[in-house]
């Protein structure tokens, strides 16, 4: 009896380690979501993963691991075995960790499975604000220096990048930057009049705009968006934005670098299929995200281009702790 038990257990253990990619996945896969339950990363991952599970023929158990602006989750996955059984489900900001002094790891320690979608930033204002478009806002700031309250979500967040872009293109704005811990709370404050202007991702603001609870000033893209065709792109006001746009936050699934290629291929294939699901596509469209669904070399190229552009933008705006140069990130 005893020998049987030992035999069975060792067979199980050996079986698991020797199985490799041929019958991957032979056990549950852990999906570590970098952000809290109910956030947009959480929603996106929980809605694409069931479709990917079908294609993969395995189970992905998702858990939220918050804290340290997502660095806790990233370091956790980086500390697991590179066997494809732990996925990192995250957003764009780890690419800024190094220059912001938030950690010494970023997506260069990971292999992208799929960059699912990209968001578009939009500048929105309280309906009572004394201006109706981007040009009006800039004129107001010039006439009333230090009076306009602009929402922010901490260094490295989308608003800080958009603000850095405006400062670089138009010269330094004299505004009050009021920090919130996410674009949801900040947009709530905007509707209550605690802040006047907020750079946010289109999907978070779209319903508020439709209801007239906030007014759009400009889309931070090179062309108008299908969802809000009447809102002008910021490049209509100033050509200089073409250098930095299109830019936007994104969502992606990653595994630790060193994961066997066939496992990566299998996962990439599953998530690509999952991202094509009509229900998921509709969800992303409703929230104003542009589908990407890229992987492999294309995804790597996208990541490094994103990192170059954004880190240097923040560096030039004086918002970084360390220069991108220190980490071998070349100026674009």
């Amino acid at each position, binding site marked *: 009896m005893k020998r049987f038990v030992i035999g069975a257990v060792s067979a199980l253990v050996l079986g698991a380690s020797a199985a490799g990619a041929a019958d991957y996945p032979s056990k549950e896969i852990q999906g*570590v979501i970098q952000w809290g*339950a*109910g*956030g947009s990363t*959480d*929603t996106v991952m*929980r*809605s694409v*993963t*069931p479709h990917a599970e079908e294609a993969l023929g395995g189970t992905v158990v*998702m*858990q*939220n*691991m*918050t*804290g*340290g*602006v997502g*660095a*806790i989750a990233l370091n956790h996955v980086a500390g697991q075995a590179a066997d494809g059984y732990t996925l990192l489900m995250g957003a764009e900001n780890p690419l800024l960790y190094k220059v*912001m002094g*938030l950690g010494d790891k970023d997506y260069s320690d990971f292999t992208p499975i799929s960059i699912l979608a990209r968001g578009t930033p939009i500048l929105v204002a309280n309906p009572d604000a004394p201006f109706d478009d981007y040009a009006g806002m800039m004129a107001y700031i010039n006439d009333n220096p*230090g009076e306009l*309250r602009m929402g922010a979500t*901490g*260094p*490295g967040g989308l608003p800080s990048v958009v603000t850095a872009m405006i400062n670089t293109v138009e010269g330094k704005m004299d505004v*009050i*930057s*009021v*920090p*919130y*811990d996410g674009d*949801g*709370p900040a947009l*709530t*404050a905007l*509707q*209550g*009049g*605690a*802040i006047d202007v907020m750079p946010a991702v289109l999907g978070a603001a*779209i*319903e*508020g705009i*439709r*209801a007239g*609870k906030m007014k759009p000033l400009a889309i931070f893209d090179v062309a108008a968006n299908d969802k809000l065709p009447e809102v002008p792109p910021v490049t209509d006001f100033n050509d200089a934005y073409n250098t930095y746009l299109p830019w936007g936050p994104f969502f992606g699934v990653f595994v630790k670098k060193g994961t066997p290629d066939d496992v990566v291929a299998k996962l990439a294939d599953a998530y690509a299929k999952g991202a094509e699901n009509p*229900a998921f596509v*509709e*969800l992303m469209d*409703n*929230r104003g995200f542009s589908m990407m669904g890229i992987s492999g070399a294309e995804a790597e190229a996208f990541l490094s281009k994103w990192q170059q552009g954004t880190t240097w933008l923040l560096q030039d705006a004086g918002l970084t702790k360390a220069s991108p140069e220190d980490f071998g990130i070349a100026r674009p």
Partner: protein
Amino acid sequence: MDAVLAFLTVFTQPELLLLVGLGTFAGVYVGAIPGLSVTMAVSILISFTFSWDVYPAISLMIGIYMGGVYGGSRTAILLNIPGAPSAIATALDGYPLAKRGEAGTAIGVTTVMSFIGGFIGIGVLAVAAPFVSDFALKFQPRDYMLLAVLGILLVGSLSSGSLIKGIFAGALGIAIGAVGRDPLTFTERFTFDLPLMQGGISFIAVMIGMFGVSEALMQLHHVNKDAVRQKISRIVPSLSTVKKHLPLSLQTSTIGVVIGALPGTGGDIAALMAYDHAKRVTKNPERPFGDGAMEGLVAPETANNSAVGGAFIPMMTLGIPGDAVTAIMIGALFIHGLNPGPMLMVDQPDMFWFIVGALVMANVFMLIFGLTGIKLFTKIVEMPRAVLIPLIMLLSIVGAYAVNNSLSDVYWMLGFGFFGYFMRHYGYPLGPVILGVILSRLLDDNWRRAIISEREDLGRFFGGIFSSPLSTVLLIAVILIFVSQTPLWTRAKAHILKPRNQGVQG
């Protein structure tokens, strides 16, 4: 007419009715076990109900939510371990009752009062949602800050032993809440360059440690003493008891709805504020507060259940979550192809009335399950302590781990468990620590937002307060409550009231 039909959807479809019931039943247990939270349960349900229609999915979630908020009171009363943060105040008077063998009565009153509070919350949601959400939006950072200060003044009513020890404990709680990377500037605070401290200290870990592990260690002192036999003959409170507490429960439910509707504050703060309110307005409780006063059960339980209806108000009218659970439900609505936001009430009024109907049903189920399963629950307290204590410890560990899947939370939980054990021995109250942790971010973030908005100018800051009626009222409330806690006021009041009291009694 459509509204009525939508409202009745849940009552006419047995499948939905069953799901609400199932959810409520599960919710009571999820709420009762410290470490299993409604937030967790609902986010797991998102993947689980992914392929379902939206009505069944929402039915199940609403059931869990309603049941879970109520369930937290069970372990608070029976074991002095609140199953959820919103039940902290319930332990203060519930556990003394269980020690007397009156857990059955305590649970009965709690259940009926939760039911009444739940209905008031739902009623306000159904009748006045747009009005309340407009009011909630008026709260500026400085108002949230004043609300936090108001909350911190509760330290006075939570420290029955020594006020100065309570003040120490409250300040300690605020400091604990500040540990880790500041979410607004990413500055490290009290991290001492340790990776363990980076993510901050989970508030649930502090709560489980201070109430769970330290309570279990305390119980070791009389491990061989027989458990208190619980009388469970009279569970449903008499009509006169309910009538007697009705005025108080109306007041505390109002507190619950408003605090629940404010984005950024939830049932935990509502329950503590309601407890404080009860202590203030109840002139002659049958038993003193902290010793098993019924009012001490009525207030927090009506408030946290009415906060459920409150939390749905900004969610349904504006697409803004009123708390963590409604945040996840908004995500669920997205996944099911709806667009929660200010237009939801216009585009899909049926959804609103369906949710109101499901909440009503969940509330009824809560009453049924609350009053029927008591025997089983009281058996838990009658278990030999030698088994109960190790199990509480194990559950505390797993629960602390489950909050954020993090081992450091387990270490924090154990650390605060040992610390809380000594605090109990030396007469430091634990309630204010938890209060401080809950309010820390609310106070800190909003103070900074408020003062940044006024360009760091204190003159402009106070000018802003007096230019807004809401802020002025809050500031006056802060001052009045503060003054009423100072010895000077107590003496003055005694002086003024003395002759009249003598006249009445004489």
